[in-house]
């Protein structure tokens, strides 16, 4: 036996009641609207009218941004913790049993890497020069 969903049945009942009362658009309102319609010129939206300009500007902006990023990427890449990727990774340093900040100072000689270790409370503890692990061993 087919069961009737009570919500659907109620919805149908409400729809019937709501739709039972409707009225036509008043003729004078329609006439006024048609009269006003004659005085209006439909206007294309700015996007539709100038869409090729918009697309051109968008493409140019995207290209310029991409070129700038390509130029800047090596600089950022070199300066991630001041370490050139793949050469030296200073994971962490401890001074007097407490964690310390590390900074890598760039050198002209690519075989030497200077690591500046600084106590967290900004008191310089150690300034030591380390040779590249790979070169030493």
């Amino acid at each position: 036996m087919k069961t009737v969903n009570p919500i659907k049945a109620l919805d149908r009942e409400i729809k019937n009641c709501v739709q039972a009362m409707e009225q036509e658009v008043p003729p004078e309102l329609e006439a006024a609207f048609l009269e006003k319609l004659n005085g209006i010129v439909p206007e294309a939206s700015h996007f539709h009218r100038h869409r090729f300009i918009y697309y051109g500007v968008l493409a140019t902006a995207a290209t310029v941004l991409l070129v700038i990023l390509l130029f800047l990427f090596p600089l950022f890449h070199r300066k991630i913790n001041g370490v050139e990727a793949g050469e030296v990774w200073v994971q962490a340093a401890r001074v007097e049993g407490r964690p310390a900040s590390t900074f890598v100072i760039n050198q002209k000689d690519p075989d030497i890497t200077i690591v500046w270790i600084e106590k967290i409370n900004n008191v310089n503890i150690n300034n030591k020069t380390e040779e590249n692990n790979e070169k030493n061993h």
Partner: protein
Amino acid sequence: MALTAGNIIPLQQRVKETGSAARAQDREAFLAYLLPVKKHLYNFILKASNFSPEADDIFQDTLLKAFRYFYSFDRCKNFKTWIFTIAHNLLKDVFREKQLGHWPLSLAEVGEITVDAVSNEVREIYTTAAALKPRPREIFFLYYYNEFTIPEIVEITGLTRPNIKFILHQARKAIKKVMEVQV
């Protein structure tokens, strides 16, 4: 036809005529789209605005605005949803400005419809709908009068699906209560 001094139309006049012909074409196309939805749109605005005297102005503004931006209407999309979105935005502005939500429902003033012609059940439902806040009332009529689906109402109002379902649930609950009292 040979070109003679008599039949050469000045360029300016020709552009003017082409423009007015295009405008007439746009007008015809717009009216063709409008014809099947006109009555539903008018009744929706009337009901959503609680049968306020401003409904006529809102209806006219909706149509004029729709015609003005008719070029931006994507012909692949649903015209009814598009024009109802315009109506919804105008109603929202009017509700905000004039607090239409508090206007009383007066079935006696509704055009040719007299109170006697409306059954008690219909009257109770409209009274319940009138007590709803403007936005839920709009959703109520979009769903029950215009028979839009929930995804279409989402497109028109910009509300979320759960929000619309919740509003409909609340309205249903209120009407059910009224109907039970009547029985």
